[in-house]
């Protein structure tokens, strides 16, 4: 009930909010979608993907190429971008998902660099100049689309917590050999999780591309964006249904506040917040909310004690 009310309030924002609020909302919601998408592969399957910004870029380029080069409608572009991301997730996932831990993280980190360099040499994608999309000046529409996408992503993650597939992913995260012994087809599960994660990132990228009406390789395959989604998911609580959403919305709000109050120091404070947050609440806001009530301030001391040398 509370949840439906929250969604209704969020959905009503375009009717009473200012333009600035709506624009902030689109950004924050899209970041929440990215964090939620990352949650599937990073939070549930336990594979710290730094490659989700590749899917985001593919989604952006899918929409841009479809609309600017082939004159297709926006929906067709979104589908094309999502299909690109899914195919790429399978092709790349099969070799790369064999790697574990840091190695997986870094192999995927390399992907974004490679893709940016490749795309800046493809004529269809406008080389390193980028592509300009037909403008559509309708922020409320983009806002509602973003919100819809976030609801879909969250429902998908909710489904993970109740389905055989989701349990399989959690088993992989906790002990991959064990999961395989219990009959989980780990390669299939990981690849599908990677693809789901990729499709949501691509859809967010597609909406963003049409909204800002311009993309270039630098911004489409930005590693910083990938780091952002990880920070937001971990800040909120990876491997939980609402953690990434709460993390993304609260961190977006914080960074917006900081940059309007003290412009030059905003980035600095963001870094400090990340460091402090990870040290005192390593399992994210979701865990703080759950356990702070019974443990009080001891909770933070306990976190430090259990992870220090």
């Amino acid at each position, binding site marked *: 009930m509370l949840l439906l009310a929250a969604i209704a309030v969020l959905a009503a924002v375009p009717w009473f909010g200012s333009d600035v609020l709506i624009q902030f909302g689109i950004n924050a919601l899209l970041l929440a979608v990215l964090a939620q998408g990352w949650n599937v592969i*990073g939070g549930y399957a336990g594979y*710290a993907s730094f490659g989700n910004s590749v899917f985001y870029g593919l989604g952006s380029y899918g929409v841009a190429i479809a609309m600017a080069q082939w004159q297709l409608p926006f929906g067709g572009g979104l589908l094309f971008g999502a299909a690109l991301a899914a195919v790429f997730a399978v092709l790349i996932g099969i*070799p*790369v998902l*064999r*790697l574990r*831990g*840091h*190695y997986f*993280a*870094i*192999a995927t*980190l*390399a*992907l974004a*660099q*490679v893709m940016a*360099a*490749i795309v*800046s*040499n493809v004529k269809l994608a406008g080389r*390193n100049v980028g592509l300009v999309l037909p403008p559509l000046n309708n922020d409320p529409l983009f806002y509602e689309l973003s919100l819809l996408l976030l609801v879909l992503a969250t429902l998908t993650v909710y489904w993970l917590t109740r389905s055989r597939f989701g349990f399989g992913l959690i088993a992989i995260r906790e002990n991959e050999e064990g999961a395989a012994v219990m009959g989980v087809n780990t390669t299939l599960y990981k690849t599908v999780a990677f693809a789901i994660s990729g499709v949501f990132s691509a859809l967010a990228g597609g909406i963003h591309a049409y909204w800002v009406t311009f993309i270039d390789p630098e911004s489409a395959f930005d*590693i910083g964006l990938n*780091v952002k989604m*990880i*920070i937001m998911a*971990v800040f909120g609580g*990876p491997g939980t249904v609402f953690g990434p959403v709460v993390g993304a919305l609260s961190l977006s709000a914080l960074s917006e506040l900081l940059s309007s109050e003290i412009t*030059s*120091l905003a*980035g*600095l404070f*963001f*870094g*400090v*917040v*990340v*460091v402090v947050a*990870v*040290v005192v609440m*390593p399992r994210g806001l979701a865990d703080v909310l759950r356990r702070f009530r019974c443990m009080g301030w001891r909770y933070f001391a306990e976190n*430090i004690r*259990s*992870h*220090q*040398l």
Partner: protein
Amino acid sequence: MDLLAQVLVNGMLLGGLYAVMALGLALVWGVLNIVNLAHGAFIMLGGYLSWYLYTYAGIDPFLGLPLTAVVMFAVGYGVQRGLLNLIVRAPMFNTLLVTFGIEVVLTYLAQLAFSADFRTINPSYVGDSIALGTVVLPVSRLLAFGIAILLTVSMWLFLLRTRLGRAIRATAQNLVAARLYGVEPRHLYAMTFGIGIALAGAAGGLYGTVSQINPYIGAALTAKSFAISIIGGLDNPLGVIVGGLFLGILESLTALYIGSTFSDVASFGVLVLVLIVRPTGLLGKAA
């Protein structure tokens, strides 16, 4: 043919510098199991330190390297002791995020303190070069290369021969057993991180003599250091030389034959290949 020889030599000289850049990252990663995303930012700080020493105190950038390294060691020791020791047993994401946070903080502080201008360390002999047949060897690059190799080899001997080096290797292999033999892990971890950052600082000083320093170079240098550590493997500092030379030569060759925009594609393509085919590095032991 002359061009090819020159390009190979340039790549090799660049590769030596790459090796020392990656050395500190590989050490911290191999021993503490922390992938230090702030490594490049520490290289950047070392570069600025060296620049200030040269510009305001007139200390030659190569002779001033020990001073830079000592200061950076103190910084690294403090960061590990005061902050990173608090989270070394947390999951991998958390150490990645904390070091990323440090990177952000250092970049912003550098931007505030040093402005976004490019800085280059230009001692008087920077334009000099030695001609070897048709191949030209710039003196400063040659010096940077020599020092890089010297540092890497001394690091190897240090880990192999000295008491502290043995303690570091023992900790990397088995923390509990090392503790039973009287290793104080908090101090040792901080020493290791300090050495890693000192090497980063020295690499920054060398980098400043052959290239330009600005507050934003950190992330790209971290990524390169990663690639080199993986290509070379984490077991052995000499692997880093192989990784560095390999990457330096590969980048120069791609720039010559395919185009400079592809040099990153080539290096990261090789990185992904090595990860898939030989995850312990070219020289590493079989997994």
